[in-house]
């Protein structure tokens, strides 16, 4: 789809996903690393716990469908080479601290002077400017700043984050969409621009608009073990089954209450509650609780009924029921469960890319969308350090063998 679109990917761990998505969509993505390799290659976990630049699972995860070159931007020759590459590129993605590349003469204004059609995508924790633009960051810091973290965890303990870093995946995925809006505009106007993605703002979408509460005079939302507190209403989302945990939506309102009504009919048929409990006004139930017409204790009792029902079945049994009757119940899967889920297998979702040197087939989550005319394909395993130096510098940039040799000796490549 994006064939012919050339992308320079200068990102660190903050932005790797963006280039991978563009690569999946058919762009020619060139990962630019310092000599010796990206710092991401030193991130844990490592394959079989043995370190090595080609063994970081972190690196594997977000660098497929990219070619790789090395280039030392600390040298003026290296910067010249990057300018030459940028002159021929359609997009550039970077995730350094704001202003860092400008000190090398490689900021947006520098490169747009060479290539006015360049789309220059910057991914940072807080954005290109503003009072926190220079703040030191990490996944946890951005999660805290965004408003996500206060929603996660058990109410009697500190908030917690997801155990696999997520903040820059949200930002990186946003950056891909943003880059393509700018690229689409370029097809109309011939002009590039700078795309400024702040992870803090990207994460607004990860909290279901609760970030707006204070601006509109609504109740704050807070965390609760396996659920959410909305004002006085404690909504559980994680429930016990006979052999583990399931999620179940037990909510109200004119849309969600219909599901609850259906579920309570079934629960009553199975003898877990009386008809009066079944026949509560589940559509208006939230209002009844908020206005005190229904005591919270009665809601707690109804939740106890649902809990007893779910505890009477295995995860598989309640999921089967959910599929049969349209209940909102699903088991809490482990990664092994995900890998053996018949849905993903039936859709041939899992994709493998062979790595002959490691004697291994890397198993990836498959295409993020299925295109009828231009399907996503996994064409390349993640590049080795400098794997495509020769084909890019010699064949595509037109350097001679001797020039390349000199640059390698000078530590530029």
């Amino acid at each position, binding site marked *: 789809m994006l064939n012919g679109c050339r992308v320079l990917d200068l990102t660190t761990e903050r932005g790797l996903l963006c280039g991978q998505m563009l690569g999946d969509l058919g762009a020619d993505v060139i990962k630019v690393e310092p000599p010796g390799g990206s710092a991401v290659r030193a991130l844990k976990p490592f394959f079989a716990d043995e370190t090595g630049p080609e063994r970081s699972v972190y690196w594997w995860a977000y660098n497929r469908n990219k070619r790789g070159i090395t280039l030392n931007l600390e040298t003026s020759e290296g910067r010249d080479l990057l300018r030459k590459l940028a002159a021929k590129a359609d997009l550039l993605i970077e995730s350094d601290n704001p202003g860092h590349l400008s000190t090398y003469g490689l900021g947006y204004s520098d490169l747009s002077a060479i290539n006015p059609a360049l789309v220059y995508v910057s991914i940072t924790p807080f954005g290109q400017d503003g009072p926190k633009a220079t703040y030191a960051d990490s996944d946890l810091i951005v999660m805290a700043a965004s*408003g996500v973290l206060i929603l996660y965890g058990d109410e009697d303990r500190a908030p917690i984050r997801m155990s696999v870093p997520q903040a820059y995946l949200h930002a990186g995925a*946003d950056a891909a969409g943003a880059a393509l*809006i700018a690229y689409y505009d370029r097809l109309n106007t011939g002009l590039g621009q700078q795309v400024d993605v702040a992870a803090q703002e990207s994460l*607004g*979408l990860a909290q279901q608009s609760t970030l707006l509460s204070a601006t509109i005079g609504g109740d704050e*939302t807070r965390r609760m073990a396996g659920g959410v507190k909305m004002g006085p209403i404690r909504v559980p989302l994680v429930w016990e089954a006979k052999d583990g*945990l399931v999620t179940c939506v037990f909510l109200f*309102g004119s849309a969600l209450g219909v599901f609850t009504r259906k579920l309570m009919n079934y629960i009553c048929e199975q003898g877990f509650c009386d008809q009066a409990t079944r026949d509560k006004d589940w559509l208006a139930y939230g209002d009844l609780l908020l206005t005190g017409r229904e005591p919270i204790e009665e809601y707690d009792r109804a939740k106890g009924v649902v809990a007893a029902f779910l505890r009477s079945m295995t995860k598989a049994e309640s999921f089967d029921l959910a599929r049969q009757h349209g209940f909102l*119940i699903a088991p809490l899967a482990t990664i092994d469960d995900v890998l053996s889920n*018949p849905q993903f297998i039936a859709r041939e979702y899992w994709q493998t890319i062979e790595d002959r040197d490691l004697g291994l087939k890397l198993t990836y989550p498959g295409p993020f969308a299925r295109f009828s005319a231009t399907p996503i394909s996994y064409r390349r395993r993640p590049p080795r350090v400098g794997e495509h130096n020769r084909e890019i510098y010699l064949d595509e940039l037109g350097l001679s063998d001797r020039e390349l040799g000199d640059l390698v000796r000078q530590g530029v490549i």
Partner: protein
Amino acid sequence: MAARLPLSDVKVLDFMWVLAGPGITRSMADYGATVIRIESTNRVDPTRTVGPFKDNNTGAEYSALYGNNNAGKLGLSLDLTKPEARAVVLDLVRWADVVTESFSPKAMRAWGFDYESLRAVRPDIIMLSSCLMGQTGPLARFAGFGNLAAALCGFYNLVGWPDRSPSGPYSAYTDYIAPRFGLAAMMAALIHRKRTGQGQYIDQAQAESALQFLALPILDTVASGRKYSPIANDDLEHAPHGIYPAGGEDRWVAIACRTDGHWNALCTTIGQPQLADDPRFGTFAARREHQAELDRVIGEWTRLRTPLETEQMLQASGVPAHTVQDSHDANHDPQLRHRDHFVRVNHAVAGETFVENSRFKLSRTPADVSRASPAIGQHSQHIFEKILGYSDDRISELVAGGVLG
């Protein structure tokens, strides 16, 4: 004068509803697309019944969740069970470049609005279907919300304390991931069409998009056989690393030290420079091993201060730290203010309210986020008259026939 917006030549017929779908078309509207949001009069969008609500008013026009996901769109309400409504939809398909929908897989086919039918009317149409598990496969018809997909994808089992049951991410996690991939997919299809004239059908399974965020544990599980379970705030690359108590009710501050430099600066800032020389904490590995002791020492210091004081003192020394913000903090956050994150808009029924700004900034063609979400059926007349060019007679027939519900 502002530049012409990037998507001002794109017309979207939007059947998206609930959470994962409408976020895609909201972004398209931000950047200039004309988006007509169809709402079925038979089934209210569930997000209209979910908070946060303006002034805690639970009426259908006061949900900030719906408002945030649908700002800038035009609203048309139709009773899709009426045959006259079908003719209106097909007229809109002829008008549109893009049709989007997020019903469970059987719905569009039942109405006769599946891709093959739409393509017969508009050969180069791009159609994006977004549903929980995908259009095919044994779970295709397993409909529901993002918390179900998040559980099936393994996200719930990755948030929690090691000594307790997992607590899961906040609510419908895959709904917060899928729109980002859906937007990129849609833009790639529009670029392809602009170059070749070819439209296509896109089947987005929200679960399949979201699993990109678990590529690391999936690769690692298959390659190395490692088992993943929740580790609270532990981290492979940072120590100390955690959420520390601050003065006040449910107030917390995040601190993350990656380098020896961060650690030394932290020790100095909290007035314990001798800790930097303590062999128990001399290396990253040692700090990670003695994290519990570190947490106690740091917590004793942070609980005497507001989170903002800790954040500012540590950041001034270059140590990654931040207040764990709630919506009240965010509303006063100078960075979010600087970036105009909260945008005031006027809603036809709810009056003055707020939406979040575009999640990204384009330097030459900044997003236009100035219009609120539509009230139910707010633009029906405008769409019939100005976009479809219907005569007054035709419009009054539709109204009299109950097509608008």
